[in-house]
């Protein structure tokens, strides 16, 4: 079955620590990949996206993600987290052809301790 897996359910880091959140998907076709963020009490917002080209994509607030096709992965990274990065992070996938619905992972809650 098609799915999006986020391995970490809750990550706790101190400020200035480096972050990597895992995301793997299981789709056979060509995909577009996204990371969305949901800050406490706010709606989902796009952090970054990959459609084609350079597999290393940069998003807002210093986040980046690398698409590794052979591993079906799209891990999110940030070299130095801040307290304001505390939020829920969702990886999502959409097939480039066929269905237009976005499939989400279960999310990773990030807590950054000042």
């Amino acid at each position, binding site marked *: 079955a098609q799915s999006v897996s986020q391995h970490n359910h809750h990550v706790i880091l101190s400020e200035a620590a480096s972050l990597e959140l895992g995301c793997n998907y299981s789709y056979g076709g060509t995909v577009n990949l*996204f990371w969305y963020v949901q800050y406490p009490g706010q709606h989902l917002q796009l952090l970054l996206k990959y459609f084609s080209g350079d597999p290393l994509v940069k998003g807002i607030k210093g986040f980046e993600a690398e698409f590794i096709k052979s591993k079906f992965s799209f891990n999110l990274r940030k070299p130095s987290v801040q307290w304001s990065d505390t939020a829920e992070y969702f990886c999502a996938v959409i097939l480039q052809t066929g269905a237009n619905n*976005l499939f989400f992972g279960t999310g990773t809650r990030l807590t950054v301790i000042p």
Partner: protein
Amino acid sequence: GAGVSQTPSNKVTEKGKYVELRCDPISGHTALYWYRQSLGQGPEFLIYFQGTGAADDSGLPNDRFFAVRPEGSVSTLKIQRTERGDSAVYLCASSWGAGELFFGEGSRLTVL
């Protein structure tokens, strides 16, 4: 406003009642999506509209759930004979196509 607007933001109802949730997408967006998010889970796809028609309703859990978008803009998600298991945050999103989805703040439904 410039974003996706959802009303009501909170709805508390009793088991067995009928509920309507409204979504006003970003002006000009042709695609509209409904998702459901339960506690501790990622958003779960319900239905997708392209214009006025439901292009994919495969995520609707059963026939108590129905959605319309009669003029290709505002959409209403309708839930009949609500059950406690329907309690969740119902998210609406819109887009120009198979690209970035813009989400509303959601309607939190609580069925007592």
